[in-house]
């Protein structure tokens, strides 16, 4: 059911050829409306001749309700390769934008606009395209939506509402949802799959709902934790490796009795490394890695990141190929938000 995809990033093109990007907030089959939240109007981009050009709008709309009949095309936002300024041979150097605060966006800060539109952003200062509405509440907005839409292209209602709804549902049906556990599903919904920034808009908004990784005030109990782990049992002499299938890399080596390095026998070693591990495509295997397991790997990492840090990362902070805002390197000065309830050292310089 389409409703289960609420929270996904969506790209929607109206019959006026204006593209909107936002988070699917709701679908009303009765009224045949689609509701997006955190919507950016991308303008007509290159879909219309220059004289009919409608520029993108910088500020996102909290909500826009669309008549399904007026929707020309709708797609779940897939990650797309970011335009990298470095790919341009004319560019000799580039500086990333200044970090906002230091990391991420402060609450209430408008999310960053998807990269595709950044160039256009520079030129736009103008009025929003006429056919959007900024709905405060559902009903009123829905009513308004119809008026507005009608004004622009009255003859465009060729597609039936149901057909449009099918488009919506089909597009949404492509999404794969990880059902591993509730938390993950929620995360997945809040985030686009591939770390695209556009989707991060929604993710940002819902960030407070993410599981908050609390660091307890107490010390970590190393001994208690280590007691749960029997390292000796890992050796082949201990327990036979029943779970061996989980760890591909572990298997091959366990059978070897020769040490990986014996200076008496050879100058060379047979340590596992990035370039010799079959499962590890680090060295040289770039192409292959992109193609095949790339997405899964990325998803796995996002899940792991949520487990470790309470957020998946990679959105806003760093899209694929994006540079982190500003200075990588410098973490924000700890300013008393340490959870241990203590101020930090006084006076960093």
């Amino acid at each position, binding site marked *: 059911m389409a409703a289960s995809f609420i929270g996904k990033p969506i790209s929607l093109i109206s019959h006026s050829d204006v593209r909107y990007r936002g988070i699917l907030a709701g679908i009303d089959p009765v009224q045949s409306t689609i509701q997006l939240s955190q919507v950016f109007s991308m303008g007509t981009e290159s879909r219309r001749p220059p004289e009919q050009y409608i520029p993108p709008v910088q500020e996102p709309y909290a909500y826009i309700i669309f008549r399904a009949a007026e929707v020309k095309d709708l797609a779940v936002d897939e990650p797309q390769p970011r335009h990298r300024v470095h790919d341009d041979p004319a560019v000799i150097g580039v500086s990333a934008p200044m970090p906002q605060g230091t990391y991420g966006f402060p609450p209430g800060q408008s999310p960053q606009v998807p990269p595709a539109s950044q160039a256009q*952003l520079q030129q736009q200062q103008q009025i929003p395209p006429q056919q959007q509405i900024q709905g405060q509440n559902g009903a009123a907005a829905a009513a308004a939506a119809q008026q507005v839409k009608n004004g622009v292209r009255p003859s465009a209602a060729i597609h039936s509402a149901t057909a449009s709804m099918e488009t919506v549902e089909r597009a949404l049906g492509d999404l794969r949802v990880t059902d591993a556990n509730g938390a993950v599903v929620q995360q997945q919904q809040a985030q686009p799959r591939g770390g695209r920034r556009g989707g991060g808009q929604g993710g940002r908004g819902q960030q407070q709902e993410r599981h908050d*990784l609390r660091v307890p005030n107490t010390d970590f109990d190393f001994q208690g934790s280590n007691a749960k*782990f029997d390292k000796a049992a890992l050796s082949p002499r201990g327990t036979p490796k029943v779970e061996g299938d989980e760890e591909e890399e572990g298997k091959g080596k366990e059978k070897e009795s020769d040490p990986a390095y014996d200076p008496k026998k050879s100058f060379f070693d047979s340590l596992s*490394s990035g370039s010799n591990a079959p499962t590890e495509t680090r060295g040289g295997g770039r192409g292959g890695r992109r193609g095949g397991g790339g997405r899964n790997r990325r998803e796995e990492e996002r899940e792991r990141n949520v487990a470790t840090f309470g957020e998946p990362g990679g959105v806003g902070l760093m899209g694929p190929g994006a540079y982190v805002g500003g200075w*990588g*390197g410098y973490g924000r000065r700890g300013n008393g938000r340490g959870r241990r309830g203590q101020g930090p050292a006084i006076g960093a310089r």
Partner: protein
Amino acid sequence: MSQAQQQARPSSSTPRSNNGDNAWKSQLNVPAKDDRPQTDDVLATKGLEFEDMQLRRELLMGIFEAGFERPSPIQEEAIPIALTKRDVLARAKNGTGKTAAFVIPSLQQIDINKRKIQALLLVPTRELALQTAQVCKILGKHMGLNVMVTTGGTTLKDDIMRLSEAVHVLVGTPGRILDLAGKNVADLSECPVFVMDEADKLLSPEFAPVMEQLLSYLPKDRQVMLFSATFPLIVKDFKDKHMESPYEINLMDELTLRGVTQYYAYVEERQKVHCLNTLFSKLQINQSIIFCNSTNRVELLAKKVTELGYSCFYSHAKMLQSHRNRVFHDFRQGVCRNLVCSDLLTRGIDIQAVNVVINFDLPKNSETYLHRIGRSGRFGHLGLAINLVTYEDRFNLYKIEQELGTEIQPIPQIIDKGLYVAPSAIAEGEQQKQKQTQQQQQAQPQPQPQPAPAPSAQQQQQQRQQQAASPQQVVYQSTAGSQGRPNGAPVGANGQPPRGYQGAYRGGVPVAR
């Protein structure tokens, strides 16, 4: 070293070692000694002196002024052989002096009056290139030679202009140098010395073709030298193909450093941050490097660490080169106590003040593990390596132990400071702790540093342009300032104020004791 080798010496103006003409030595500006204890990894020498190596006086001056007293084992073995112009294949542990072992003979063979590239030193990462070039400059300080460093991520044009002047030593990463050589900008036709540091990395599939091409630009009778702590079999192919009866030096009876104590802490993924926080509060960290397995995780962790109230820098391959450089430089200077990074900085990086390495994510293979933990315990000093291990990592942990022939112990409740803290710093640490408790009561939250108002997209555009012109540091403060995090005063080897590596790149080592 045999006497026969002396014939091969290029310089005839070498001072005789013990003939009493030692006036020049008294003029030297030798840095203070490093009194930290060291292990046999760097002390087990035969007793050769730098003065016995028939080096030019100018080079010797640079060596002593860098704080070197006696050659380390690998230097003792490699330098005399390398001076005979023979091909060398040298294997020694992390941080035992390999860089100087190839820089010294490379510099010795340079004819300053010849305006040609006479030594090509290749390294796998940009940061390592900077570091190696710095070593060349320090050691060659009195020789009047020109060292140039060139890497990707910088402007090619600058490199081209620079190469129109005399360059004697070229240090860099393979791709850029191949680029320059292919454009006939870098003339390697009379370059007799070809060194590959972290040779196995340079011969991994991603670099190997480049290396082969590069070699074709050098004269036939060049000297090829390979250095690393790990030599997988892939290096053998290269050796058979491109090296002429190389002299093999292997100083590694075992793989791991004696001075580095390794622990694991078994954690769940979601406990890692908590665990790290506890480690920060318990350990007496002089400087630490924390490794993550992806760039995203580097950023996420850096964010968490700062939220916890600890200062940290971070670095990874997707950052702008200028930022990477700045982080690297400032971390070396001791501006910040903790560095979160990806495997970008796994190899070769030599920061003496690092006494703790934390694998926030256990690496996937033992080679990476070995190089990572080798960031602490530099030059035979003591250090700590702590691995956060999850259930998923269990076989990897086992594999690493097996392959490296080492044992990683469960972390004890209390870690003996004697295992990783310089004796002189232990007492200091205690005082710091007390002071800090007092300060905590008065501590006020710091205001956010300068650029607090988050810029709009448009402002960002402008700022981006400004930044392109003059990169500036945005948040540039360290909580770890001198007023004491639990871990003591800001770094610098052995509790001294952070010192630049300009004057003494190792802060006063090697010291034979």
